[in-house]
């Protein structure tokens, strides 16, 4: 069943530039849906339109199959968690949590019931009489979550709720939010500009750029089959290595950035790749270390980063900087020329002009399937 449906939703503040352009999507009940995109892409605007905090310029918004364009926020039966938590500084944690219930005139008995339950769930029972300024960032975050949980609204909206927390706490809260959502069966629309958050939390992700949907899909799909160059470079860390490419006249080689030839089977080159300007991409983990015998290229290392469990290496490929990610610890120095193995089945092909995906990597898929 669809909980939220957007049909050609458009937003413009000044009637000239469209901040959001014909956004259509539907979100299932119980789904964790992530909106991700760079700053200014219109994520918050979209979320606030769903919440009813912002007028919808054009298009239809349905919640539970009912058109709600004209309804004020309180009649949409949803809850929202803000980036700065929006806790009332003069109220205690308890009063903050109960704020919405009081406004909705829920009975005193039920208020206490829900408060106790929620506080227990969120680990806030000890903190109920404190004021927000006496709490740590993570605790404040939890109060904000509790406020949303206690409302028992089936739809929960979150706008970058973790961006004020430090990295470690953020990782913890990611898991916590995710678990909470599953446990309560909430439908979640979650905004973030952090693709790691998107990848780790979302059932499905929508990538937004400049008010236009770039791609909607499962995290793995976005990773393996990025619909265009924008998604390819936005999703994944480090970003996908990209380079302009040209086939040799006999289609036996694909030459990347004019310096990196890749051996091809001419028969496997489909027609649609032949007469466009190509950009190819390859994930950092698909540039493997080569042995003497199976190395396809020797590349000069321009930078080395040791992360402990893995090592990232950077190479100059024409005008591009490519990275390779190898598991384990590798004693390699800058300036070394090292053997690597790049194979054709890991390449994604894009049209340089339209930036659309032409052909996804063939190897990636089978590998993931194996992993499951």
């Amino acid at each position, binding site marked *: 069943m669809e909980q939220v449906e957007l049909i050609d939703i458009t937003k413009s503040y000044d009637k000239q530039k469209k901040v959001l352009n014909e956004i259509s999507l539907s979100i299932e009940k119980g789904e964790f849906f992530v909106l991700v995109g760079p700053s200014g892409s219109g994520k918050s605007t979209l979320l606030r339109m769903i919440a009813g905090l912002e007028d919808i310029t054009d298009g*239809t918004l349905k919640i539970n199959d009912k*058109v709600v364009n*004209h309804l004020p926020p309180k009649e949409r039966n949803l809850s929202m968690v803000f980036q700065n938590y929006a806790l009332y500084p003069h109220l205690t944690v308890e009063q903050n949590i109960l704020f919405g219930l009081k406004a909705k005139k829920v009975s005193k008995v039920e208020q206490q019931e829900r408060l106790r339950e929620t506080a227990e769930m969120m680990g806030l029972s000890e903190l109920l009489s404190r004021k927000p300024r006496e709490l740590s960032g993570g605790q404040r975050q939890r109060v904000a979550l509790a406020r949303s949980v206690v409302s028992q609204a089936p739809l929960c909206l979150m706008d970058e709720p973790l961006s004020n927390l430090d990295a470690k706490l953020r990782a913890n809260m990611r898991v916590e939010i995710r678990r909470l959502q599953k446990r309560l069966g909430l439908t979640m629309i979650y905004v973030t500009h952090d693709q790691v958050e998107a990848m780790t939390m979302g059932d499905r992700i929508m990538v937004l750029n400049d008010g236009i949907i770039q791609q909607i899909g499962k995290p793995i799909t976005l990773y393996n089959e990025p619909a265009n160059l924008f998604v390819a470079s936005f999703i994944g860390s480090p970003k996908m290595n990209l380079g302009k490419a040209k086939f040799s006249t006999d289609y036996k080689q694909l030459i990347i950035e004019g310096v990196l030839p890749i051996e091809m089977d001419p028969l496997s080159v489909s027609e649609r790749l032949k007469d466009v300007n190509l950009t190819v991409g390859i994930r950092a983990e698909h540039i493997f270390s080569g042995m003497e015998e199976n190395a396809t290229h020797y590349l000069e290392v321009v930078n080395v980063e040791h992360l402990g469990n893995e090592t990232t290496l950077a190479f100059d490929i024409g005008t591009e900087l490519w990275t390779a990610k190898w598991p384990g610890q590798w004693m390699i120095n800058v300036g070394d020329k090292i053997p690597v193995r790049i194979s054709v089945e890991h390449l994604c092909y894009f049209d340089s002009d339209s930036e659309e995906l032409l052909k996804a990597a063939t190897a990636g898929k089978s590998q993931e399937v194996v992993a499951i």
Partner: protein
Amino acid sequence: MSIASDLAVQNQDSMELVFKQVRKKQKIKSFIKGILFLSPSILLFSVFLFYPMLRTIYLSFFLTDASGSTTVFVGWQNYINLFTSPVFLKSMMSTFLFVLYTVPVTVIISLFLAVIANEKLKGVGFFRTIYSSSMGISVAAASVFWLYLFNPSMGFLNMIVEALGFEAIGWLTDPAWALVSISITTIWMNIGFTFLILLGGLQSIDSYLYESADIDGAGYFYKLRRITIPMLSPTLFFVITVTIINAFQTFGQIDILTQGGPANETNLIVYSIYREAFVNYQFGSASAQAVVLFILILLMTAIQFKFGERKVHYQ
């Protein structure tokens, strides 16, 4: 199938209509809400500020009876009379002189006090309280204090003057001194407020500015001239305009100390309006004076808005 989609289209259209209506209703609702929140203020402003101001302008073109009803339309005659009347010209002259006497001295003394009271010294809070104390002293009380100080025979000031071997001064009775005496009283009264504002301005200057100047080895007066005064200039500007506006509105100390005398020396504009309206019952001519006052203050506030804040800072 096609019927269903037709229905959908129709539905769509009627929904559009509903949205439009709802949006319109919401707009009207939020307008009403805004007006409701503002209406008490707007109502009172209208009744006790805008209407009276318009009425003042209107009255200034009429002669009135003692109850304030208009009798004869006289056009610009009230204004012509004013600007040919030696008494009013004198009043204008005194008002400007008064501004000249009070404003610079008030600001300089307050600035000095604010600077010395801004040092991080033990017990400085006590001094701040003392310096701002005149803000809590009403015109009436302050005037009474100074009335005694100016007293020709018992007053403390003349005691000092005589002790120094000079002749006693008729502070409030000598035309040469009366305006100065009023100015001294006014300066003393104003210091509390200007000091408080300037101190606030000083405290809002980021301390890192001083720290980096310290690292550069700058001296006290160098820092005062190169950091404090420039950074304080918006506040100074505000204080100056407010002090000028206050000076134009001076009334209480005149009423208690000199009643406009001697020889109209201290007949400042508001006192002149008061006398014309509520002693002589010449509401038309008093209104014309009020319009002059209005224009003076309008100019001052306009200047303040135009050059206020940012610009001064970067002069």
